[in-house]
């Protein structure tokens, strides 16, 4: 049992686990927005030909696992990460970590996550939590999206750690190997690097499915959904878009508000006035995403649904694409003094 452990609630599970574990490993000044920004968490992609839960495969953030990995790299904190072929080996290893007083990050699936409400239990395998202790067969869990700590039995924890399907966690456990001293200079460098990499991902990926161009592509597709899919399925697709954008973990507005908060915090480390102004552009983008969600809800509630309504929906995304392009271009022009 790790007696020093302190639960921390966050908007997003991976940000929360990263922030909590790294604070204990020497990065005392790390916050959720800083972890998200240093890990270049903001993204947009609609994967063609792929469907998730019978709807479009849309993501507003980077691939699971990368925020933790990038933030550890940037702060020069070494990471231990283990996956297991056998469930028994996975359990033994976790028990050894807990006996040694370590709090560890664990990747789990939510379908069998008993404390989640049934409505949220899909086959999503990239949820993250911290296991920080064990009392007989009761494992103490700090799930960052929750206000309070919780617990799982040995059987329940095994079942979620070894969930199957896309992104199968295979019992994955991860934690900082040792405590390091993280200097202010390292934090500054990490923030700068995180922003530059995020600029690349949002404006320099070729093709038109990812980054700001991906948002406009989805916008253009939405205008065709009504004819192509029929009113009902088109409504379902919009509902899926809104869930990816607003569901638990996003902090609202498809992670755009967290990113705006990150830029404000970044300015405390880098006294560059533009960061404040660009933060406002991301707030504007987040607000537009939420306005679009309200409009989409009108369609999937069946209150509206003409072609003109779908055109308005598509135009929202095309406009947002322009706003985010402007914001990232402004970020790419920043003169860093470090």
């Amino acid at each position, binding site marked *: 049992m790790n007696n020093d452990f302190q639960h921390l*609630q966050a908007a997003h599970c991976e940000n929360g686990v990263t922030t909590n574990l790294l604070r204990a490993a020497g990065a005392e000044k790390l916050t959720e927005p800083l972890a998200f920004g240093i890990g270049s968490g903001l993204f947009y992609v609609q994967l063609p030909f792929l469907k998730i839960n019978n*709807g479009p495969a849309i993501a507003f953030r980077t691939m699971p696992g990368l925020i933790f990995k990038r933030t550890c790299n940037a702060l020069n904190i070494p990471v231990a990460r283990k996956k297991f072929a056998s469930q028994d080996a996975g359990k033994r290893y976790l028990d050894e970590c807990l006996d040694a007083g370590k709090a560890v990050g664990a990747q789990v699936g939510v379908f069998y996550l008993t404390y989640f*409400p049934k409505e949220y239990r899909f*086959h999503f395998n990239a949820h993250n939590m911290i296991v920080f202790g064990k009392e007989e067969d009761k494992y103490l869990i700090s799930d960052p999206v929750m206000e309070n700590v919780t617990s799982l039995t040995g059987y329940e924890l095994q079942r979620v750690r070894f969930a199957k399907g896309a992104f199968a966690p295979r019992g994955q456990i991860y934690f900082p190997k040792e405590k390091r001293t993280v200097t202010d200079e390292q934090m500054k460098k990490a923030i700068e690097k995180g922003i530059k990499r995020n600029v690349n991902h949002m404006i320099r990926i070729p093709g038109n499915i990812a980054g700001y161009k991906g948002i406009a592509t989805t916008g253009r597709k939405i205008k065709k959904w009504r004819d192509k899919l029929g009113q009902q399925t088109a409504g379902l697709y919009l509902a899926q878009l*809104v869930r990816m954008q607003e*569901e638990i973990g996003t902090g609202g507005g498809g992670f755009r*508000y*967290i990113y705006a908060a990150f830029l*404000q915090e970044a300015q405390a480390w880098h006294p560059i006035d533009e960061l404040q102004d660009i*933060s406002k552009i991301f707030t504007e983008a987040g607000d537009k995403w939420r306005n679009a969600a309200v409009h989409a809800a009108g369609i999937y509630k069946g209150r509206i649904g003409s072609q003109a309504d779908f055109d308005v929906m598509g135009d929202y995304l095309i406009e947002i694409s322009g706003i985010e392009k402007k914001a990232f271009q402004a970020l790419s022009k920043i003169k860093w003094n470090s």
Partner: protein
Amino acid sequence: MKKEEIPQDDGALNKLTKEVVYAVDSSGRYSTELSTGWDVKTKALDVAWEDIQKRIEESRQKVLRGEASPILYFMELRLMDMGIVSAYTGFWKWTIKRHMKADVFKKLTDEKLKKYAGAFNISVEELKTMTVHEQ
């Protein structure tokens, strides 16, 4: 989003926890706040579940008409797709597709049925009779 605009509607998640959202105060500074939910996304989740219920019922009718085996029904009931059923059972997707035919299903060995039952978290008897098993 401004602090005073944070929705405090009811939603399924509210049974478990309030969630963290990021919003600005009157001077434009960001901080975290808690929200109980937002009806826009509650409705989005409702719509998704209505669709799932529809799929489950359609698959049940198909099995009753003899056009498919209970494997199809339980796949829908457990929100799975072929990839997930394949990952839990170890069968190839094309094999599962075959097992979804009513007449092929009738000839499956107990050993194979057990694998499906395990994947769906039900007993072999429940699998054969398409009984709904609540967790």
